[in-house]
């Protein structure tokens, strides 16, 4: 079970489905995958990625749109992290509270 992979794939699919423009295109996703692979192998790189994600990504040829940032969370042995996209629906059901 590769939960993390599942989650990122889902997130990627989600964004492309909704046509969000500020999300990496498929080709950049390839570069992104390489960066993630590198973070698996090099502890130093991993630390850099966590402490200054935007700069480190840019150095690797993955430029994020201006004003858009990204945070890396390290999986731990006892926690499953599931990233979810921003809310885009209607918040009106608040009346019922």
């Amino acid at each position, binding site marked *: *079970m*590769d*939960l*993390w*992979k*599942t*989650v*990122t*794939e*889902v*997130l990627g*699919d*989600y964004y492309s489905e909704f046509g969000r423009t*500020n999300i990496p295109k498929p080709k950049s996703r390839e570069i992104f995958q390489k960066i*993630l692979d590198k*973070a*698996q*192998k090099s*502890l130093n790189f*991993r630390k850099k*990625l*966590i402490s200054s994600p935007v700069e480190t990504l840019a150095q690797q040829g993955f430029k994020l749109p201006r*004003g*858009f*940032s*990204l*945070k*890396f*969370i*390290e*999986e*731990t*042995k*006892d*926690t*499953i*992290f*599931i*990233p*979810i*996209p*921003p*809310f*885009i*629906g*209607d*918040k009106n*059901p*608040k009346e019922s509270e």
Partner: protein
Amino acid sequence: MSKEKLQKIIQRATTDFDYRKRLIQEPREVLIDEGFSIPPEKKVVILESTDDMFYVVLPLSEKDKKAMPQPLEYTIEDDVVYLKGRLDSYTVEQIRETFLGWEKDISFDLKDLTYISSAGLSFFLRIHKQLDQAGHKMGLLNLQPAVKNVFVLGGFDKIFKI
């Protein structure tokens, strides 16, 4: 964890406000309701991305993965228990309860047991003692060489039938 199911949950959480709130507050319960099985010792945390910031989860490094406890699989058929994987201080907890109350002859088929630690040995010793006192027998079958070696080195081959 199936991709399709998770995708449905995530998509619903982007448009259904109440569902999203509940997913964030009690992720484990929601995932279980949706049919996922989550080990009790694992926490589940939802990371909410915003329009201009999104979260990416870095998986455990290869080294950490190796250090992670490997699960033990077991099936019980009549009086034969088939064990697959590793039997160590962590995985022994999975089966301890089941066998502490065992009251008949039993055999453990270890053909797919790849590793046993001292915690595993003491588990077998305990079960053996308990059954022996009640007049029952415990057998160990199909030990792999590496596993068998651990038994022999500890002198356990004189106590157990292997």
